[in-house]
């Protein structure tokens, strides 16, 4: 898996995102999420960014719940099978057309969940691409023009895991001072200070090592597009073609 081109998984997930939106089916979206999860679980390494997918799933679930709740409570009623009737909260006249509460129908619930699930699968596919690709490798195929962007990526990917390590270190030190429930502020301040200092160090190191000096970068190990890349990318394309013909 090491030799895959950094853009492969990105192209693959973009193709799949298009299919999910085109298919507009909750079942299909759920299948895609499951498939992505399987691939990430099997092939993502043990790098700091590999956990992004699971994080994106959690984020997606949160969005799904918030969307479902607000979608059901607020908005235009959809007629259909009644599940429960809530009292309507009276709103001033100028807010006509919006209502909170009222009859909750099965149709309204499923349509909210359906849209939510598609959003979740889009987020999850992005997460999968991040999980499966080293951002540092990604940096090497990006043009030098995006210099600031490159510096920011390197700093973000290396300072996040550092932040986690520093957090547990500082919290442990607090416990050792006999402070079992340290206040958030008392940890956040030294944590931010440290993160900032380390980021500056890293930026200085990149600068003094000549990053961004030459417009053209040479490559020690040329990043090649291999048959495995073609296979993965075309699997995405085939799926895209299938979905397109089925839905049109």
């Amino acid at each position: 898996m090491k030799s895959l081109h950094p853009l492969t998984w990105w192209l693959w997930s973009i193709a799949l995102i298009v299919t999910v939106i085109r298919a507009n089916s909750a079942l299909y979206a759920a299948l895609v999420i499951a498939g992505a999860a399987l691939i990430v679980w099997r092939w993502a390494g043990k790098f700091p960014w590999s956990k992004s997918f699971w994080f994106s799933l959690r984020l997606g679930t949160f969005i799904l719940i918030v969307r479902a709740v607000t979608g059901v409570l607020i908005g235009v009623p959809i007629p259909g099978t009644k599940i429960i009737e809530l009292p309507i909260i009276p709103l001033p006249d100028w807010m006509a057309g919006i209502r909170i509460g009222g009859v909750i129908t099965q149709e309204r619930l499923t349509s909210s969940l359906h849209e939510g699930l598609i959003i979740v699968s889009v987020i999850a596919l992005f997460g999968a691409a991040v999980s499966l690709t080293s951002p540092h490798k990604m940096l090497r195929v990006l043009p030098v023009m995006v210099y600031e962007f490159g510096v920011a990526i390197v700093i973000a990917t290396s300072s996040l895991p550092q932040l986690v390590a520093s957090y547990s270190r500082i919290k442990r030190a607090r416990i050792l001072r006999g402070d079992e429930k340290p206040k958030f502020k008392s940890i956040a301040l030294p944590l931010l200070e440290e993160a900032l200092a380390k980021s500056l160090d890293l930026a200085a190191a990149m600068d003094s090592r000549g990053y961004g000096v030459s417009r053209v970068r040479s490559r020690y190990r040329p990043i090649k597009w291999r048959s495995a890349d073609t296979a993965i990318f075309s699997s995405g394309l085939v799926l895209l073609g299938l979905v397109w013909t089925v839905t049109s």
Partner: protein
Amino acid sequence: MIKFSNVSLVYPTSTQTILEGLTFSIVEGEMVLVIGSTGTGKSSLLRLINGLVPHHTGGILAGDVTVDGISTQLVRPGELAHLIGIVGQNPSSGFVTDTVEEELVFSMESLNVAPDVMRKRVEEILDLLALAPLRNRAISTLSGGEQQRLAIGSALVMHPKILVLDEPTSALDPIAAEEVLSIIHRLVHDLSLTVVIAEHRLERVIGFADRIIHIAGDGQAQIDLPENILKNSVIAPPIVHLSRALKLDQLGLSVRDVRRMTEDVRRNGKENPQVLKDPTPTAILIKGASISYGSHLALKNVDALVMEGEIVALMGRNGAGKSSLLQSIVGVKELDRGEISIFAHPPMSLKGAVRRATVGYIPQEPSDLLYAQSVAQECAQADKDNGIASGSTYALLQGLVPSVSPATHPRDLSEGQRLALALAVVLSAQPRALILDEPTRGLDYQSKSLLIEILKGFAAQPGRAVVIATHDVELVAELADRVIFLSEGEIVADGPTIDILLASPAFAPQVAKVMAPRRWLTVNDVMRALDQETDSR
């Protein structure tokens, strides 16, 4: 090669001049050592060489710095990358990529070096720094010494004319430090590389230096031969203190030179009587302690005792399990098997005030313990936590370092002062045991002797014990009663300091190397053997 003409430097938010009217030049193939107390501007001086100061930090630079004829004012630091390799204090915070090989080629790729040239140079560096077995490893899995070698390798791969190193050995055990320094020494001699190096532990580098830049701290700096600088300097390795104490005609800088001059001392000195302490009750009991991380065993069945009144040093190479053992003694890491008791408490059960009164812990970064906005607030918090009269902690701090102003932010203190503040906070609770994890990283000699005094004073009170993990053999020689030596999670030696330190040349302090086969570890030991009680420091 490097030329400073009338250089002065002031940082934007500070009123203090870091450097003032500094003029010197360094020729090709020279190895120059930069010394000075912490916070005097050693790092600033190093970073001036490739223009990181002031390009990256801001600040006002007067005068001119030229490197190989190029003024650093006119170019960005990156444009000097082919000329200057710079390795920061903490190599792990400067790594940009994921694996050893990618890290080595990062600079060359950025500067668009042709692939065949890159391949040749990478092989060359892998051989030179013995990195070949690591070439495909992820950087995060490397040990401290390996990371340091990689950082130096990634700088050298550009074939720079100048190598700038900021405390390259501060995180390394004596053996790893020796490896790194001998590589640098070889490069100076074989390739005529110009090296500028800042280091606190002079005993490690003094033999290699051609000249020394001594930064006084008030903006003044001197550059001269090592003999001339060290003749009067407070900052000096033990070997120089020995020369001074013995009133030798010449200042010897290498073990060999001083050995030649001290033959009669070795012949005439008498054996120091071993001080036998009365047996004391057990303070810390460790029985069958084991810890593993996944398949890696960090501690294997460790048995050890620490008695009351004892100062025990925990030594061993990077990754030998020292920190794991300390963390389980203070009760933040649970043992997989075995048990530990500290003054009859199981450490994991300690909470709040009982914990503070039982065990005090100084982590590798003392600043982790501090979070208030000023020294005064920090002390007041400690007073409140421990229910003692307000002002007691500050009084304690004044006893340790008199010069600290209560309004200062803890971040603005020097390393030594920050350690003293953390110690004051911990000691204000009157703990019975004090545990320290590598407290001397980045400490200058002055702060170190202060630490030795504090810890000796602490252990002299009845019913106290100190455990300290460290790489610093000179500190151990001065301070510890007993040494426990860990290797790969097992105790390989446990005995009186003098026996353990003299058993292996790599861990012998400088004075002991000079005085071998006589069993003297420190300048004081030697003077005692000659019946001349002097205050050598």
